[in-house]
C-alpha cells in the first residue's frame, strides 16, 4: 500500500520540480521599456544666442561638417526668404526641431484599440505643428518614392531601456536657421535616454549630399 502510494507520488513530485525552472523561463521577455510619456521642457543651457532669438548669424557654420555642396548651398541662403508669405508658417523640420528654440513638447502614447499595446509615441508641441509619430509596432518605412514630410517617418525600437528612433522621408530643409541645408536623402538616428526626470536626446543626421560626416547633437529636457 505504502510503496504503491510512493510510486504514484514521487513521479508527480519529480515532474512538478522539473517544471519549476521551465515555468521560471516563461514566455520570451519583452524588451526593457522606459516611460517616456509626459511633458518635457528644454533644460539645455547651450548656445542660447543661436537657438533662441536672435538666432544664428549669417554664415556662421561653426561645428557643422558641411561639404563643398553644403557650403555652397548655405551661402545662397538669404534671410529675407523668411518674409516670403509661403515661408512664414514653415514648420521646423525633424532634423532641427528638437534643437530649435525650446522646444517644450509632450510625448503621448498611442495605444492599439484591440491589443491594448503601446504602438507609438507622439511628440506634439513642435514649431508650427510639425508633430512627430514614432511607430513602435515594427512597421516598415514607406517606399523611397513616398511623400517626404516636415516630420519625416519615424520608427523606434528599445535597446537596453533606450529608445532608438530612425527617421527617413524628411523634406529638404535645414539643420540650423541660417540656411545650413539638409537634403531629403538624409537619415536621422536618435536615442531617447531617460535619467530620472531628465531626458537626453542624441541625434545623428547622416546626409550624403551636404555633409562630410554625420552631424551629431545632444539636447536635454526635464
Amino acid at each position, binding site marked *: 500500500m505504502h510503496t504503491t502510494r510512493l*510510486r504514484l507520488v514521487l513521479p508527480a513530485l519529480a515532474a512538478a520540480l522539473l517544471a519549476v525552472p521551465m515555468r521560471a523561463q516563461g514566455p520570451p521577455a519583452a524588451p526593457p521599456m522606459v516611460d517616456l510619456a509626459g511633458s518635457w521642457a528644454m533644460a539645455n543651457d547651450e548656445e542660447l544666442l543661436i537657438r533662441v532669438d536672435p538666432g544664428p548669424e549669417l554664415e556662421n557654420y561653426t561645428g557643422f561638417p558641411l561639404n563643398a555642396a553644403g557650403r555652397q548651398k548655405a551661402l545662397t541662403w538669404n534671410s529675407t526668404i523668411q518674409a516670403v508669405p509661403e515661408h512664414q508658417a514653415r514648420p521646423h523640420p525633424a532634423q532641427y526641431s528638437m534643437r530649435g528654440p525650446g522646444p517644450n513638447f509632450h510625448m503621448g502614447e498611442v495605444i492599439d484599440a484591440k491589443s491594448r499595446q503601446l504602438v507609438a509615441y507622439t511628440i506634439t508641441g513642435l514649431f508650427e505643428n510639425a508633430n512627430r509619430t514614432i511607430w513602435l509596432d515594427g512597421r516598415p518605412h514607406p517606399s523611397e518614392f513616398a511623400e517626404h514630410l516636415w516630420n519625416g517617418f519615424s520608427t523606434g525600437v528599445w535597446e537596453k531601456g533606450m529608445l532608438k528612433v530612425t527617421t527617413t522621408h524628411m523634406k529638404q530643409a535645414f539643420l540650423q536657421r541660417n540656411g545650413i541645408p539638409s537634403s531629403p536623402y538624409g537619415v536621422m538616428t536618435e536615442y531617447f535616454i531617460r*535619467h530620472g526626470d531628465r531626458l537626453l536626446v542624441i541625434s545623428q543626421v547622416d546626409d550624403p549630399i551636404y555633409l562630410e560626416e554625420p552631424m551629431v547633437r545632444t539636447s536635454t529636457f526635464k
Partner: protein
Amino acid sequence: MTNPRYLAVVAVLALTMVTLRAQQTPAAPQTPRAAAPIDLTGTWVSLVTEEWRWRMTTPPKGDYISVPLSDEGRRVADSWTPAMDGSCKAYGAGGVMWLPTRLRISWDGDQMLKVETDAGQQTRLLGFDETRAPGPRSLQGFSMAAWEPVGGRPYARNGTRLGTPAANGTLKVVTTNLSEGWLRRNGAPYSDRTTVTEYWDRVAFPNGDDFLIVTIVLDDPRYLTGEYTRSAHFKREADASKWRPVPCRAV
C-alpha cells in the same frame, strides 16, 4: 528488493534538487569593473558641434551668455583678464568635459575609473567605493560613481508593468569637494560649493560610430542662479595615436 523504476525516480528527484539549489545559490558580489554594463575604456575625442565659438576659442571678457550666473558670479567673471587665459581653473571637473579634449579612460583597479584629458593634462578618478575618504578640496574634487538602470519609472499602465525593467546601462557620477574653477576659459566661475552630477551613456550609430555622451548638471548656490545643464559628446577613436597632452598654467 527495491524496484529499479523507483530508484530511477529517486535519482531524478535528487538531481533536480541539486540543480535547483545550484540555481538558488547567491552569486558572489561582482566588482564594479566586472559588473560594468557598458565599456567606457579607450580613447574618445570630443566632437564640438555645439557652442563652438565658446568652446574652441576663449570667449571675450564678459561673454557668459547661456550661463545662469548670479550677481556674485558676474562680479567674479568680470575680474578675469586675458592674461589669465590658459589657467588650470578652466580644467576642473565642472568645466573640463566641455572643452575640446581627448579622454583616455581606463580602470585603475576594480573600483576606480580613471579619466585622463590631453587638454590641460588632468586626471579624474571616478570611484565606486563608498568608504573612500574625500581628501582635501581639489580641481577634480571627489567623484562617487555608480552603475544605474537607464530610465526612471518602469513603463506601466493601469498599474501593470509592461516590458522588463531596464538593466544597468548608465554611469552616474556625483562630484563634490571641488575647489573653485571656471565654466569657460574667460573666467565664468563655479564655486567650491558646487556639486556636479553627470550621466555617462554610450550609444552606437548605424554607420559604426561609437559615442560617449556625458550629461553634466551643475548646482552652485553661490555663483549660479539655477541648474546649469549641458551634454557633451565624444567619439571613440581606434587608438591613442592622436593623443596630444597640453598642460594648463597654474595661475
